[in-house]
Each structure stands twice: as C-alpha cells, then as structure tokens.
C-alpha cells in the first residue's frame, strides 16, 4: 500500500479520454473500443485487465498509432505529456514510437526478424534514436542485454533469434525498448506465451525497469494473478469499455463492479484451503459488430435490470482513485446478494 501511495505523486504521462476505435471489415463496422478512458502517471504500473476480445490490445495499438488502415480512432482526448497525439501527422507519431513509448508483444517467438542478428535489432533502434555510431551502438546494445539479464551478451549479440528461447527473446525485446529510453512501456500480454517460471522472471524484470529506468508500464493481461503482484493500478476492460478502475488493492479487496467481482470469483484460491467450485462467468463476450446499447456486461450480469440495457451507465466515483461503470451502488449490489435476488436471471 505504501509503495502504491508513493507512486501516486508522479506527473500525468498519458491521458486517454473516451477513445473509440472501429474497424471496417468487409463493409461491416466492428467496434473494438467503444469509449475507453485510462490515464498513466509517472512511475505507474497500470494493468489493463480483460478477457479476449475486450479491446485491450486494440486500445493500446490505438494509443501507439499501430492500427491498420481500415481502423479509425476518435477520442475526446489523447494526450501524451502535453502533446495531443490526434493532431500529429503519421510521421510525427512514428517518431514518437520507441522514443517516447515503446510496446512489446505477446509472442516473442515471432517478434524478431528471423534473418537478423540480435545485435542488428538493437543497434538499429540505437542508431535511429540516439544517433550513435556502429561501435557505440554495439556497446550500448551489450549494456542493454546485460540489464535485462541475458548472460554473456557480447556473444549473444551475434546470434540469431532462433538461438534464443522464448523468455530470452522477450528479454531482447525489452532490451530494444530500453535502448530507446522511452518513458512509457506498453506490454501486451508479455508473458502469455511463456512458461510460468519464465513469466515470473519477466514480470520481475518489468518491475525492476520501472524502478531503475524510471519507466512507466502499461501491462495488458487477462491474468489477474499476474496483476496482483506487479501493478499499482488496475483498469478492468470489457466490451470495449473500462468497467472499473482503481488502485490494485481497491480492485482486489473492494471491487465495485459486478464484472470485476465475477472475475475475482473465477480465480482459484489454493491457499484458503476451502474447496469450492470456481465460478465461471456464464455466457459470451458481447458482439463487436452489433454491440448492445446498454452496459455490455448486462447480458451476463446476475444483477442486471432494464435500466442496464437502456444506456451505457455513467461512472460512479467511489474514492479519489476508484470508479466503476454500473447503475447500482456497492450497497445495492450487496443487498441483492443478501436477498438472493441476484440469481433469478442468469440461470
């Protein structure tokens, strides 16, 4: 808790307000992000949590400006360190990528060019952004590999990606990000494709980078377990909207939104010793081509009423840091739980 409070003091790096991204696929409109708002402060590790198709990757790519041409992004505001990204030209935005904010991806196995040496990957970005000559770039690259914990980096620099394991490749990508010295690192499910033991190492590395390199991190994941140990803030995403946001402790110990609550119930609790069935959330994620008019979770929500389906609910601010997008207050939800009313609809 103390640590979390400390990092709250940082200045605002990124503000995203009401961001919408739609794709035109074969003349059908696919609404991947429907008005998401997040913000990242200096020193934050913000976790964006959501299931597949909730729009979290698309949201990040919209921020990065990495979407294909059939995508269209609008937002009330998309500001990075005082610069309105929506007003910048494609080329200006490209020059910010890597330098200001870098992104690492889900599958490290395919993220590196198989025909280029690890060293070439690193020196390329170094020469692009730090205007180093080849020799300096090589030294910096060695240094970066050492920082991310790759043993004998001098030798590894001249190897090809296929000579690296998945975890090592993810480290290389993180090293690439390090080389640019960005203020913000977006990690799109960086550990999903890796072994559990390697997962922990990579997450530890991200945390270390935040502390040593003063890099803020946005961590996209569908694994709440990953989030608990690492992030100081969480945004829960569903159906292209941020359902709830708050400090990690607030989300874990005082979740307000029914979706967040349901998610937390779906985490196995081996330490409590209580044997109970995991509660899966019934139903499927909402359609992106024909999204519901109201709360996207209403269809699967055991508390839902007509009001939920009528319109997207407004945020309800609970604390300075926590807010949730639900028509019911926490007390109302708790009351419904007690009366056992809640189960009437979903079964």
């Amino acid at each position, binding site marked *: 808790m103390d640590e979390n409070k400390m990092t709250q003091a940082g200045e605002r790096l990124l503000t995203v307000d009401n961001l919408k991204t739609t794709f035109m696929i074969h003349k059908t409109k696919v609404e991947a992000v429907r008005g998401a708002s997040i913000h990242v402060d200096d020193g934050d590790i913000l976790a964006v949590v959501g299931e597949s198709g909730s729009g979290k990757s698309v949201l990040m790519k919209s921020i990065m400006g990495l979407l294909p041409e059939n995508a269209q992004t609008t937002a009330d505001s998309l500001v990075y360190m005082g610069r309105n990204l929506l007003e910048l030209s494609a080329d200006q935005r490209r020059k910010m*990528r890597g330098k200001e904010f870098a992104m*690492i991806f889900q599958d490290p196995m395919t993220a590196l060019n198989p025909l280029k040496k690890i060293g070439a990957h690193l020196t390329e970005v170094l020469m*692009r952004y730090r205007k180093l000559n080849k020799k300096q770039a090589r030294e910096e690259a060695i240094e970066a590999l050492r920082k991310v914990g790759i043993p004998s980096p001098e030798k590894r620099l001249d190897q090809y990606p296929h000579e690296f394991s998945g975890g090592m490749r993810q480290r290389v990508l993180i090293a690439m990000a390090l080389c640019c010295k960005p203020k913000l690192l977006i990690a799109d499910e960086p550990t999903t494709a890796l072994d559990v033991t390697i997962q922990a190492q990579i997450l530890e590395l991200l945390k270390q980078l935040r502390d040593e390199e003063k890099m803020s991190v946005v961590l996209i994941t569908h694994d709440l377990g990953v989030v608990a140990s690492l992030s100081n803030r969480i945004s829960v995403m569903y159906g292209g909207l941020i359902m709830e946001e708050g400090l990690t402790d607030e989300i874990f110990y005082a979740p307000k939104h029914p979706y967040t609550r349901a998610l937390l119930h779906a985490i196995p609790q081996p330490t409590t010793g209580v044997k109970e069935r995991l509660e899966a959330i019934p139903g499927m994620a909402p359609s992106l081509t024909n999204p519901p008019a109201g709360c996207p979770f209403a269809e699967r929500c055991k508390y839902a009423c007509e009001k939920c389906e009528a319109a997207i609910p407004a945020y309800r601010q609970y604390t300075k840091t926590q807010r949730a997008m639900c028509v019911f207050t926490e007390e109302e939800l708790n009351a419904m739980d007690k009366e056992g009313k809640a189960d009437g609809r979903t079964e």
Partner: protein
Amino acid sequence: MAKYIIKRILAAIPMVLIITVICFALMNLAPYDAIDAMTTPNMSPETVALIKAKYGYDQPVYIQYIRWLDGLINGNFGYSIVTHQSISADLAIRIPNTIKLILPAYLLAYALAIVLGLIAGSHKNKWVDKLIDGICAIGIALPTFWVSMLLIYFLGYKLNVLPIVGMHTIGQENSMIDYLRHFLMPFIALFLSFLPDATRYVRSSTITQYSEDYVMVQQAFGASKAEIMFKHVCKNVLLPIITKLGMALPMLVTGAIITETIFGWPGVGPYFVKAIQGMDYPIVMVILVLSSTLVILGNLLSDILYCLTDPRIKDLG
C-alpha cells in the same frame, strides 16, 4: 556445413543413376524398335541382323544399358541414328545458344519481378498492386506460343523491323547488331513468359513477410516504411528467391523448347523436337537424362544456397 553439402551430393548420385535407368527403360518400352530408324522394309533379314550387331542391339538389354551408361560417364553421349553425328558435339553448340537466350531473359525478368513484386506486395490492395497483379494475371493466361506469333506478326511481318527466324543472317555471323536483332523477339517472348509468374511469387512472399509480427514490432519501435522495407522485408523476401534461382538450373537446357522452335533459334529446343519427330532415340534419351539430372543438381544448389544464406539452417550439420 561441409558435411551437410557432401551428404547431399552423395545422396544425389543414386538418384541420377535411377534416372538413367528409368530413361533407358522407358525408351526400350516404347512401341517401336530403335533399329527401324536405320533399316528399310526392303532389307534382307541378314542385313538387318548385321546392322543390329553393328550397333549392339543384338546384346541383352542390361549390357546395352551398361555400355550406354559407360559412354555417358565418359562424356560420350552416342550418335544420332538419323544424322550419325556426335550428340556431345551437337549439344556443345546448342546448349550455349539456349543459355545465351534464356539466361538474359530469366535474369531480367527476375530483376524486374523483384521490383514489381515488392511494390505490389507492400501496397497490398492499393491501385498499384491491383494494376500489377491484374497485368500478371493476364500475363499468366497468355500462352507463350501465341505471344510469339503476335510478335512475329507485328514486329516481323507488319512492321517488318525484325527478322523472324534463326540467330544470324547468313554471312553476318560476326555482326553483333544482326545477332541482337534476331535475339530480340524470342527474348521478349521468354521474358514475358517468365515475368508474371515471378512477380506474383515475389508479391505473395512480400505480403507474407508484411503480415509477420516482426513488422509490427519494428513499427512499434518507430521504424519508417523505408526502413521496414529495405532493412527487413526485402532481405526476407529475396532469400527464397536466391534459392529459386537454383531450381531454375534445368531451364537453361529445356526452358525454351517452344519459343526456340517457333523462332528457329538453334538451341536445344528444335534439336529435341526434331529428335522426337525423327524417333532419334539416343538424343531424346540424352536430353531427358540431362534435364532430369539438372533438376536434381538444381535442387542441390538450392539447398546449398539456402544453407549459406539462411542462418536458421546452418545448425543442421
């Protein structure tokens, strides 16, 4: 690396041997007797037997095969049974002629195909891609012989600017300009037949590379379009093309049979076609063996080139 190459070469030897057996067997199974090409119905059986003995046809098949193979290995491909000329000597003239025609056409077609393919592939579904791809689709659909006929009709007959047959005008064997004038039409026909296929190959390979994750990663690290194209995609696209060049080896001999025949280019094509028509089976057999051996060698060359250029294969050993 060396071990791998030696292994591949050793594996190629039995394959070539099997090819000679198959070629020889097929020729022997053909529904005519080789001796018919040399005899006439009026000859007495004794004369026919004499001729048979002279050429060794009285021997058992396996002896014939071994003698033929022995000749092949020593560079003696035998004699045409129609003209009685040495096949090795004939081929020594004809293969270079064919290469002189095919190699420039193939190389130029590929050079242009790489440029067009990269442009089309990197602009997938834009008008420039649709244009290039559309022209390629038409190009693939046009048969070479038809294109050749059109060339002959317009350039050779209507406009009457280029000679329509042969390689030299008689008496001007050393004139370069005369050679080029003869060369131009078959060259264009061949170039046009190679180009669309190669362009499509490069295009699809470019599209595949662009959809790879590493391109997105490069974008995420601020690489410009040009950097992605020239530092990343280009290399990955060109690599399989180098190896395709190895596969093209047999084309140097039998790659232009139709075009050469139409334009009367004195290469392997007309020689082969005439041999088939004349039932000149030693020639047919030699060219079959030669082209299939080149297929094997071409594959071998591809593998070796791959091995040299693709870092992922080096470890095979």
